[in-house]
């Protein structure tokens, strides 16, 4: 049974055209994360939510925003995608604390044309 679901698995958007990636979880975990992973690199943490509390990494560009309307869903909005934003975007959850074991979704591969 899928526990962390990401839709779509593949997303193509045009340069400058806003795009939203979605993540949902059936685990009822408090913490949700968004990562960006470029080819041959480790996942880079963009931000995370502890419940409704949003925590942005210092080096996350302003172009990236997130929403968490309820416990189950979290969205990644890219306001004006550039070619450099093409990457795999991974969503993860953990139960209570940031240091807890993370459960990952399969990722959404974003292509910017």
């Amino acid at each position, binding site marked *: 049974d899928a526990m962390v679901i990401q839709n779509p698995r593949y997303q193509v958007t045009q340069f400058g055209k806003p795009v939203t990636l979605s993540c949902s979880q059936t685990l009822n975990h408090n913490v949700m994360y968004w990562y960006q992973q470029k080819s041959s690199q480790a996942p880079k943490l963009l931000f995370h939510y502890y419940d409704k509390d949003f925590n942005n990494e210092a080096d996350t560009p302003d172009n990236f925003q997130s929403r968490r309307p309820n416990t189950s869903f979290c969205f990644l909005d890219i306001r004006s995608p550039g070619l450099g934003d093409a990457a795999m975007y991974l969503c993860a959850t953990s139960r209570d604390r*940031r240091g807890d074991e993370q459960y990952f979704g399969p990722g959404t591969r974003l292509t910017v044309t």
Partner: protein
Amino acid sequence: SQELEQSPQSLIVQEGKNLTINCTSSKTLYGLYWYKQKYGEGLIFLMMLQKGGEEKSHEKITAKLDEKKQQSSLHITASQPSHAGIYLCGAEGYFGTGTSLTVIP
């Protein structure tokens, strides 16, 4: 923020050989995770270590966290092609630089 350095960056081994991947932290680790990732896929949890000196094994993979809790190692015994992938250590939401493992049949 947490900084995790992995070595080596990549590894190519013959099937059946043993190998070790290291993860060094800039801070004391209170929980260290090892993950495996196949190209283009999500991360698969392997093991979690929390106590200094702790060692855990699963099938042919053993992970240790040193006493000072700033370094961890992942050891694979008798490697198989199915072990190929990228190995990542993680702590507090941050990931290490990754180690790409290729196992030649």
